[in-house]
């Protein structure tokens, strides 16, 4: 499964949710129909996407928050799963894009990449629902069930690695807005005055 295909399958279920695209951002930018509800903040500090998305979800319980996390981020912050499980945000949908490697730094393998069951870790941390998929068809078929019940839910998706080997300065610049603009647009959409 490729990340872009996984995000294409998800797109019809987005509705008016806040989407934190994480490391799927470079594909999501071509698929989104509500860019002002997207929060592509890049990579402020590895391991923090889940906490950031949790903060959004707790601040806006009436709004679904959908996060596309990575296994590298999750491994840096396993304890965050326990915090999310304790908070039980019903509006929080936690997807994991698992490519088994550190794609932006040359494709170094993630430790024990082929033998780690992230859905089991999430379940053990206290997530009431957790899924794992390797095939696009099964993932696509399960989306109504995933979004048919409240969160928090964890969805681990194994994808093919797409390693970026070009120097950072020569990579495609898919982000069209600065972080400040992303936050400004989201706040405007949410009616937050700052």
């Amino acid at each position, binding site marked *: 499964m490729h990340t872009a295909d996984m995000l294409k399958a998800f797109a019809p279920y987005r509705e008016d949710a806040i989407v934190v695209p994480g490391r799927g951002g470079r594909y999501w930018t071509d698929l989104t129909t509500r860019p002002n509800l997207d929060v592509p903040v890049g990579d402020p500090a590895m391991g923090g996407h889940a906490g950031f998305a949790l903060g959004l979800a*707790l601040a806006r319980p009436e709004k679904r928050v959908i996060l596309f996390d990575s296994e590298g981020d999750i491994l840096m912050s396993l*304890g965050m799963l326990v*915090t999310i499980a*304790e908070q039980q945000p019903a509006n929080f949908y936690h997807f994991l894009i698992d490519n088994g490697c550190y794609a932006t730094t040359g494709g170094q393998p993630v430790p024990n990449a082929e033998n780690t069951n992230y859905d089991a870790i999430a379940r053990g941390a206290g997530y009431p629902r957790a899924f794992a998929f390797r095939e696009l068809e099964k993932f696509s078929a399960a989306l109504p069930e995933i979004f048919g019940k409240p969160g928090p839910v964890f969805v681990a998706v194994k994808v093919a690695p797409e390693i970026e080997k070009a120097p950072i300065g020569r990579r495609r610049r898919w982000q069209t807005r600065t972080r400040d603009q992303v936050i400004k647009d989201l706040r405007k959409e*949410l009616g937050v005055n*700052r």
Partner: protein
Amino acid sequence: MKAEPSLRLVGVSREGHACSIAAGLSVAGAKPLILIQNTGMMESGDSLRGWLLGLNIPVVLMVGYRGWTRHGVNQDTAATYTERFLMAFGINYYLVENDADAPRISIAFEEAERTNKPVVVLVGDEYHGFNR
């Protein structure tokens, strides 16, 4: 804190998590406050950089100043590096040692809002709660 209806307590297992959670809360319109110890603040360096300074998050961090002493020789490296750490990150801070210093906490909140930056309150009496 759990019993106070105006607060929502979000427990974390690592202090850097508090930074990213606070960033999300602030971006979506809530008002976070971070309560940690200086050891955890130093562990949080990259999260402070990326999530709080990088996203211009106005938040106060109340930081227990482990090892702080005004009356003797410091014997705790947690205290040795605390203010050096904050200076390296360019984060402003206020020391609170007793009840008379409490107005500094309000100053920290006002400064965070005005500058859109994290501001630290170092609590120089973390075990006694000002009740010596």
